């Protein structure tokens, strides 16, 4: 997709071309045999199909811009014969492809696009998810998602969003937008916002792949390494997060033997290397917090004091009530339950945050630990009244059952 889009500069044309190429493969490979390099073959065919489409458009005088890009790239080879030819030269080989991939990610995550469509577009164009699958992620009808994607692609084309890496002054800001999209893909998979399954493994895998790809392409950006580390460390706990009934298992109750040691080791090594650059950022800090959990052999060994400090540092980068609430829990778990509850109560003073179920869940847990069972039950019920996912709801019921109310 990336190398075809780079050629024609238009996502919609490229997408059609790739589909045509796959169709050609389905028809030709069984007869003529699978080519030596199927990927390169597909790219080559898709590029020719795309150029055909561009030529058709150009003849209609519609896309001068696209037509202008076409001329120098394609030499004498006629499109008619080229379709069946094996690829030659630079097609689909070497560093060009990686750079194309990166440029495609940056294009899909352009800040001129509406934030939620950036995630959808990345899933479509970079990860290759079908529109129906993306629609399922966002809980909208397929037709709605198709319309959103079409609108975004049209904006990319009409507004002249370029398929290339942003230049250094804008790079940092644009990279933030890209990292955010990858992180959102992961969190959407890690804790599906609705529906009955808690983990959408496919989305977690895609996010890790994307982060890995970014890491390869931008090896000197500590936040990129921080993001990959964070995803690996969090994803390592996937198997332990959900019990056989599909219910949520809290971190402290997880069977740590189910954690993937290889992913943890990789995440920790990445994080260490990133921190050595001396440019800490939110993803590195989140990863450092995740590492505090993954290095504890038992839940009781968790260094909560360190986690509280990391959240305090994170607040400077990301001043949000979510971070503050997490800091409150860490402070409480480090031994000062009252201090933790005081922080949560001060957050609860804001009307908007009182409607946030996670705040009540956190408060309920601390009250339970403090032995204030009646208040804990009340807080669980408050959370339940604010709309929880089915799995969260079952968790709250179990807690209420144990509290005897």
């Amino acid at each position: 997709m990336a190398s075809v889009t780079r050629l024609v500069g238009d996502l919609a044309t490229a997408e059609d071309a790739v589909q045509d190429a796959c169709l050609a493969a389905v028809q030709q490979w069984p007869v003529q045999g699978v080519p030596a390099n199927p990927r390169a073959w597909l790219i080559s065919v898709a590029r020719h199909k795309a150029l055909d489409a561009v030529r058709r458009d150009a003849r209609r005088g519609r896309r001068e811009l696209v037509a202008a890009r076409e001329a120098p790239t394609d030499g004498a080879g006629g499109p008619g014969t080229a379709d069946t030819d094996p690829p030659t030269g630079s097609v689909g080989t070497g560093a060009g492809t990686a750079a194309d991939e990166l440029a495609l990610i940056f294009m899909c995550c352009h800040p001129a696009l509406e934030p939620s469509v950036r995630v959808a577009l990345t899933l479509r164009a970079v990860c290759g998810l079908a529109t129906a699958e993306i629609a399922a992620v966002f809980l909208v009808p397929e037709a709605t998602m198709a319309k959103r994607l079409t609108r975004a692609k049209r904006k990319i084309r009409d507004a002249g969003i370029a398929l290339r890496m942003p230049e250094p002054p804008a790079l940092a800001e644009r990279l933030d937008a890209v990292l955010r999209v990858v992180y959102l893909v992961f969190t959407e998979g890690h804790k599906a916002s609705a529906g009955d399954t808690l983990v959408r493994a496919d989305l977690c895998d895609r996010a890790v792949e994307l982060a890995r790809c970014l890491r390869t392409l931008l090896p000197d950006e500590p936040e990129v390494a921080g993001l990959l580390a964070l995803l690996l460390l969090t994803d390592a706990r996937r198997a332990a997060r959900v019990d056989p009934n599909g219910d949520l298992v809290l971190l402290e109750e997880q069977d740590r033997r189910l954690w993937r040691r290889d992913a943890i080791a990789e995440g920790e090594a990445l994080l260490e290397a990133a921190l050595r650059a001396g440019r800490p950022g939110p993803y590195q800090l989140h990863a450092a917090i995740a590492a505090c959990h993954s290095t504890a052999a038992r839940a009781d060994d968790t260094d909560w004091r360190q986690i509280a400090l990391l959240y305090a540092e994170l607040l400077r980068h990301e001043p949000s009530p979510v971070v503050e609430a997490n800091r409150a829990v860490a402070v409480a778990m480090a031994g000062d339950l009252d201090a933790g509850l005081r922080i949560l109560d001060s957050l609860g003073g804001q009307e908007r945050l009182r409607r946030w179920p996670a705040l009540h869940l956190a408060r309920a847990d601390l009250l339970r630990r403090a032995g204030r069972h009646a208040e804990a039950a009340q807080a669980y019920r408050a959370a339940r009244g604010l709309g929880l996912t089915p799995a969260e709801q079952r968790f709250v019921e179990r807690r209420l059952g144990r509290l005897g109310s």
Partner: protein
Amino acid sequence: MKYLFLLYAPEGPPEDPDDVEYAETYRAWAQTLAEMSEAGVLIDCAPLRPVSSATTVRVRDGRTLLTDGPAAEVREQVGGYTLVECDDLDEALRWASRIPSARTGWVEVRPVLPTRAPTP
């Protein structure tokens, strides 16, 4: 690719050329326009007279209706425009962010649809 920057700002009383702030804004404009020319992106740029001088034209059923003032009475009105030729949106956005109006109001960046306009 051509982009039209529509410069929006709350319309206030006429600016006083002796005002310090006015001089500051004027200098910033001169600087940005000089840089745009230097880079070869600037096609045209001008401020507009206040909306009190605007006339809105509508033709309905063959009849021409004229109304005094802007098409919509809103606080922020287009107070000027800049037309540029850039390679892509990122370049256009970079220039738009350097326009002084972006600091007091906002700049709407609109890609111009390429057409062959009839030449007089």
